[in-house]
């Protein structure tokens, strides 16, 4: 079947727990679809070529560059964006740690970084600093020099670990 770049498709996906649907062209990037069709502008676009990491979202549980994925490829998938973090009235522990450690300045890179960290801590609950830095090396932040971000992730991991130990 021949697909034209501007053919329009109905794309339905689960966004932050709710089913959402809109039209996308074959070539529409997922980041543009999320931001401009579905209105979740928390996900940012910094390079559109897969280097900066600002556009990172979680697709079916894995951190994914939404500038390197087409909207049509997200059909039927579960997509989580920064808007899914925290509760209605407050920040979650990861977000709070970012604030407390001054892990953001302009905040433009932050959504992508939070999503990577979120997924990473689910996979590796007790990381070393080296592992955290390695994970973060997929993101560019121009403001912070990264120190606060690394500290925030390590602090959250420690705190969650303590909680788990207390519960046992």
């Amino acid at each position, binding site marked *: 079947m021949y697909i034209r770049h*501007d053919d329009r498709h109905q794309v339905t996906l689960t966004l932050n727990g709710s089913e959402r649907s809109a039209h996308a*062209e074959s*070539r*529409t990037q997922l980041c543009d679809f999320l*931001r401009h069709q579905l209105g*979740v*502008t*928390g*996900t*940012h*676009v*910094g*390079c*559109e*070529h897969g*280097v*900066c990491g*600002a556009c990172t979202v979680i697709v079916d549980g894995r951190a994914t560059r939404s500038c390197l994925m087409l909207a049509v490829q997200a059909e039927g998938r579960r997509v989580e*964006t*920064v*808007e899914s*973090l*925290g509760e209605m009235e407050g*920040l979650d522990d990861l*977000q709070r740690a*970012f*604030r*407390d450690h*001054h892990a*953001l*300045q*302009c*905040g*433009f*890179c*932050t*959504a992508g970084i*939070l999503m990577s960290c979120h997924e990473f801590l689910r996979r590796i609950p007790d990381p070393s600093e080296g592992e*955290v*830095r*390695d994970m*973060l*090396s*997929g*993101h*560019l*932040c*121009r*403001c*912070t*020099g*990264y*120190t*606060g*971000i*690394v500290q925030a992730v390590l602090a959250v991991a420690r705190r969650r670990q303590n909680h788990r130990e207390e519960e046992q």
Partner: protein
Amino acid sequence: MNSQVSLHDEPRTYIGKRQSRVEDEALLRGLGRYADDLAIPPGTLHAAVVRSPHAHARITRLVVDEALKRPGVRGVLTGEDVKLWASPFPVGVRQSMEHWCLAVDKVRHVGEPVAVVIAEDRYLAEDALEAVEVDYELLTPVVDPEAAADDEAPTLHEDVASNVVNDRHFRYGEPDTAFETAQRTLSLKVRYPRNACTPIECYVVVGQYDPAEGGYDVMANFQGPYALHSVMSRALQVPANRLRLRTPPDSGGSFGIKQGAFPYVVMMALAARKVGAPVKWVEDRLEHLQAASSATNRVTTIEAAFDDQGQVSALRFDQLDDCGAYLRAPEPATTYRMHGNLTGAYAIRHLEVRNRIVLTNKTPTGLNRGFGGPQVYFALERLMQRIAVELEIDPLDVIRRNLVPSDAFPYRCAAGALLDSGDYQRGIELGIEQGGLDELLARRDAARREGRRYGIGYTVAVEPSISNMGYITMAQTPEERRRAGLKNGAVSTATVSVDPMGGVSVHVSSTPQGQGHRTVAAQVVADVLGVSLESIRVDVELDTGKDAWSIASGNYSSRFAGAVAGAVHKAALKIHSRLVSIATQQWKVSAEDILFSEGRVYTQDGAHSISFHRLAGATHWAPGTLPESETGGLRETAFWTPAELTAPDEDERINSSLCYGFIFDYCGVAIDALTGRVEIDRYVTLHDAGRMLNPQLVDGQVRGAFAQAVGAALYEAFHYGPDGSFFSGTLADYLIPTTMEVPDPRILHMETPSPFTPLGAKGVGEGNNMSTPVCIANAVADALGDTVEPGDIELPLTPSKVRTLMGIEEPPRPEGVGEDSTETTAGGGSTLAASDDVEIPASPQRVFDSILDPDTLQAMIPGCHSLELTGENAYRADVTVGVGMIRARFDARVELTDLDPPRSLRLSGAGRSGMGDAEGAARIHLTEIEGGHTRLDYDYEVTIGGKIASVGGRMLSSASKMLIGQIFSRLSHQMSGAKVKRSLWQRIKHRLIDRGGDA
């Protein structure tokens, strides 16, 4: 107008605290409102820009018909429209060159906008770019600034005679006398590359045109300075009040770069006019890297006059600044931002400066964090390191000996900066002690014992903040300045208002880009009015149609903490004093008795107390109950400009900034022997930025600047091909450091409050951009040692560059091998011949004698480990020579023959190494020229055989040209420094004769 107010009477609950930011919650929840997130008017169209693929060309034909037929395309804006509706941008120097927002006849850099396609969505607009037909007639590009400055170079702007569009000389004190009488002099030529603190968010502009009012309304993530508002409105041919320029609530970083959005403000305003609908443009990363903005690359020759202890009496700067294809406002500000404080943290009284601005076929330059600082300090602090190496003393001693004395503040520098406060000596001691210098020195010793390359670098710097708007006029002659009207000052504005329910709103015109201005402004107001941080809302959007602003508004020159927070403080004090006067009237108490805290206003004795919102609310609800002086309502705007920022004086001295912080940095770096990678072992940075308003944010600024500086030092550069093509168009080519490359710096603070700012604070956001690149370079130079030419330490020090500088070292000749076989012929190798000349500031006789002096001769030969006398004017030398990556260690015979003092001689040599053989000779002619100087002409022939010759003829010829050139430039440099001694042979003869006489 300079009211000195202090915080003495306020209980300080918030100021000076590590306060987490009010900005963060929204940003962390994805609720920030950046330019591309804002709602746009229905019917908004989208733009994509046709850009030049050529660095220098004439546009011979531009046809848009095909593009207009493409789906969704609604119009194309071209140079013809622009000529009809707009003017070129005003330029900062008196030259007839035109810079339009779109090319009208020629293109002068790759990526220069040529046309704007406007379509129903961005994808469609981009689709149609290829359908715009443009024919170009190619012209010769000029890329290198020194080549561009040559009289013979093709000119970028035909109406201007030369690419050097501004050339100014300055002299402070008596530099000539200082240089003539100095025990020593040393000069160094360095190049600072092009780079940019490129933010993660690119430019976004939404333009609208209102034909009824004849005005434009543009939203852009522009960052100021708002002096450029007048540049934009003049280009659009409208009065300033018909260009409403608005900024979004949040910005994805700028670091100076978003100043360069202004041509696009004009472009999208015109695009909207073209299609009769709002037009939105979102820049992509390729566009951004190739055409948005760049730091100014600079070629500096810096020279110092000093004594044997390293005390510097005079400096000479010859700066050639490459501003790219157009001199875009506010350039040539890069050149002059540091002018008043060119002598850095040092008390150097004699100074000579030559500044030239040259245009080349590259992206126009503009604001970039550190602005002018990295370029100046790279030259100055490399030179200070060289002085230490030359004198074989500790670089810290050279630094210490020259610092501005602690009791000298405020200190007027040679070129006019008034260093407001500081204690540099104490800063150094603190830094040494708290940063652990001793331990670092021990680490270097240990590393070197193990044979690893490890170096330590030092830098001191003053960090200027709050720019004097008058410094930019230094590019003009005093006469031109007088005619144009003197400019000076730095007006900052802030408004504080209290609503009928007692809520406090603050507005500042500082257009922050992530620094946390909302938090700090709230901290300042909360302390003055005694209310909680949460009850205050700070608005940082700037709307030139509605808000208080002035030309100095915007986010640059680290002006927030010193100036804008000061204006906020002043506005809050106005509210405070109005409330005090209401309370004194009602309670019949004196003003001193009234206190503000915890949301209440009360008297010290507890007799009276009222909630803040009741008291403030009365100005709205019951103005009739207030004193007669009260007008009702509660809103105060403060403008603040410091008296110290005066216009340049008759002697061309300029206090280019209001505040000058102090920085002392040092670092240890290790170089990987295999890859050449520079690893920062430890970085210590001490800052004195006056009073810290929020230490957490101060550290954040230091860390951010440091990370960018690590990029500038080791990874980042905009690369251009010889034809002006651009090589750094993606973030995979332009390497921004990641977590893996940025170590955590050790940050130290001291506080000597500024006497000139309302809160005693100074800027702190740019310091490491200035100090860190050269500090790392000094450490790398220390690690590589003497085998590397000082001028070859060029940024960025990428692994491949460092690896090349290191070369592949051949071990020394083993004992007993090749002892008597230095007679060698390099038969069958390649022979290279060339000639050149060099000017030496000494008489032919002195030059001649120096060449005969073995110390000078050894110093002349690059990579000479030892030189041993074997007969009259004959030597045996151990020399390492690098050709490309190969480094060969030669056992060589060097001879000086055909002596005809002081006119000519022959320098010949032959050597053998494991990598091959070489022999060569140079004929040297000395001619006396003007000023008693010497022109040294030389022609040489070199024959090379063996492995070395395999690197190829082109490389060999350029390497030998460079090597031979180095021999004579080293001679020249020796001659301008050390005193000439008699030749060793002469000295031995003298000694023999003397002894004979004794006998």
